[in-house]
């Protein structure tokens, strides 16, 4: 079927894509800059068309636990929030990871810590990829860089979440959430009618009880479970790394950036090339798993890497680990809701690596 073309905000694209992906439920609580997700879903009222439940919970904590419950029943469920709200959800996310349940969590990042600012930032990288909640868990983290990807990654997120029985986070930011671009929407999918065999859908006499829990008081059992989780994460690292490269073939300097910063850096590459500098860009699409292997390969032919992020320097640590000292790696970023301009990136690349 032909895809439908619309002009939409990133937040609206997430909402519409969730309906079309055949989601069973959305549970959320409003916060700038992502409130359009809840607003759009409320207005669309998909309960009358697909049967998808949309509910404004009493808090973020309630919303993530509704997701936990829905996911335990094998349903396709999602929630969304922005940074302070995502912090509130961390306990639930840890439980969902511990219970090995699939779900999609969308973080439209704003500046922090604390209430910070409502303007875009990328300062939740550590929280997302290093485990914001307690315990030895990981989430698959997808970083959209366009409104189209905010739509596409809903479907992809659910697919990966169910494939690996793991929470998936879409790590966006206020800029992509608020920005409008063209988006091609997938046709409506039907909601699932059959559920995974682990789901708590009502016990039949023919099978043993399904138990959803993250608790095991017996240490040996818990250790075996944690090892099983790590095996799963290692499999994800082998199979699910996604990234995009721009003009890396002959690059002497590499920019590494995701999301909004990657869009900015694409233009920085054009500006730098026009000045005769051989600059390329690697855009991680998955932040966990991180494209470490590819960055390490590229480092063999580079003079330096600049990690560009709207933070004080978080992803740069994973870039450093990836290249393992092969080439100098530096960070450049703005904070507080300020988005770096393409020219600024080029100026900093030059002052750090070339003029120094």
């Amino acid at each position, binding site marked *: 079927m032909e895809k439908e073309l619309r*002009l939409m905000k990133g937040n609206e694209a997430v909402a519409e894509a969730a309906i079309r992906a055949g989601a069973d439920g959305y549970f959320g609580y409003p916060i700038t800059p992502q409130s359009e997700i809840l607003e759009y879903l409320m207005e669309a009222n998909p309960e009358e068309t697909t049967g998808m439940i949309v509910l404004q919970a009493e808090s973020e904590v309630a919303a993530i636990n509704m997701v936990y419950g829905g996911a335990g029943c094998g349903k396709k469920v999602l929630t969304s929030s922005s940074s302070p709200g995502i912090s509130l959800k961390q306990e639930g996310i840890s439980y969902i990871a511990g219970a090995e349940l699939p779900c999609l969590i969308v973080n439209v990042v704003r500046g922090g810590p604390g209430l910070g600012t*409502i303007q875009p930032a990328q300062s939740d990288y550590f929280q997302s990829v290093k485990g914001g909640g307690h315990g030895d868990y990981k989430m698959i983290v997808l970083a959209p860089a366009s409104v189209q990807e905010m739509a596409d990654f809903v479907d992809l997120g659910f697919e990966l979440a169910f494939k690996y029985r793991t929470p998936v986070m879409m790590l966006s930011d206020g800029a992509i959430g608020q920005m409008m*671009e063209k988006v091609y929407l997938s046709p409506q999918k039907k909601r699932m009618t059959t559920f995974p065999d682990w789901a708590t859908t009502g016990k039949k006499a023919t099978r043993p009880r399904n138990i959803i829990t993250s608790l095991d008081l017996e240490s040996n059992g818990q250790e075996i479970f944690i090892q099983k989780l790590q095996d799963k994460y290692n499999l994800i690292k082998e199979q699910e790394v996604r990234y995009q490269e721009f003009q890396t073939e002959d690059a002497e300097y590499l920019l590494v950036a995701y999301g*909004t910063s990657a869009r*900015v850096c694409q233009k920085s590459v054009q500006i730098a090339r026009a000045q005769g500098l051989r600059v390329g860009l690697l855009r991680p699409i998955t932040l966990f798993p991180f494209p470490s292997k590819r960055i390490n390969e590229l480092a063999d032919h580079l003079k330096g890497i600049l990690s560009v992020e709207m933070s004080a320097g978080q992803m740069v640590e994973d870039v450093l680990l990836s290249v393992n000292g092969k080439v100098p790696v530096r960070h450049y970023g703005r904070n507080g809701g300020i988005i770096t301009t393409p020219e600024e990136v080029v100026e900093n690349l030059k002052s750090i690596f070339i003029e120094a």
Partner: protein
Amino acid sequence: MTEEIIIAGFGGQGVLSMGKIMAYSAVMQDMEVSWMPSYGPEMRGGTANVTVILSDESISSPIVRHFDTAIILNQQSLDKFESSIKPGGVLIYDTNGITRHPERKDITVYRVNATDAAVKMNNVKIFNMIVLGGFIKVKPIIKLENVIRGLKKSLPERNHSLIPLNEKALIRGEEIITEVQRAE
């Protein structure tokens, strides 16, 4: 062809919706577009602005430092964005409420007195469409017929009766826009 545009004025002047209609119109012509608003506390009584990029190619950064065209609708925005126009670029402004006029000599300046024109047409709400009419006259990137198609696509059905009025406003803007200064 890539046109990087900033539209800036007071919240409530229809800055964001003008940008949206511009973007929709370009989509009707199969162009690539991005619409990047300022959002948040700025909207309450302060200035509102939106960056619109129209292009034949896929758009890299939706955030830019310099603009081909600035559409300026109040003094604060003129003060803030006059220096951000590329040399040889275009400034379109409504002189209503402006006390310090543009000073740069390396840009082409147009005046579109849309506030007055809207009052004369007995509908202040069409102010932004008069300005947009001026823009499509001096920067013929999007065609009037596609603006109308864009309006049909972006407005809810119940408001389609307002389209003829909007078309008049666009045409009025095309008529009244005046070149004040040509770039040196």
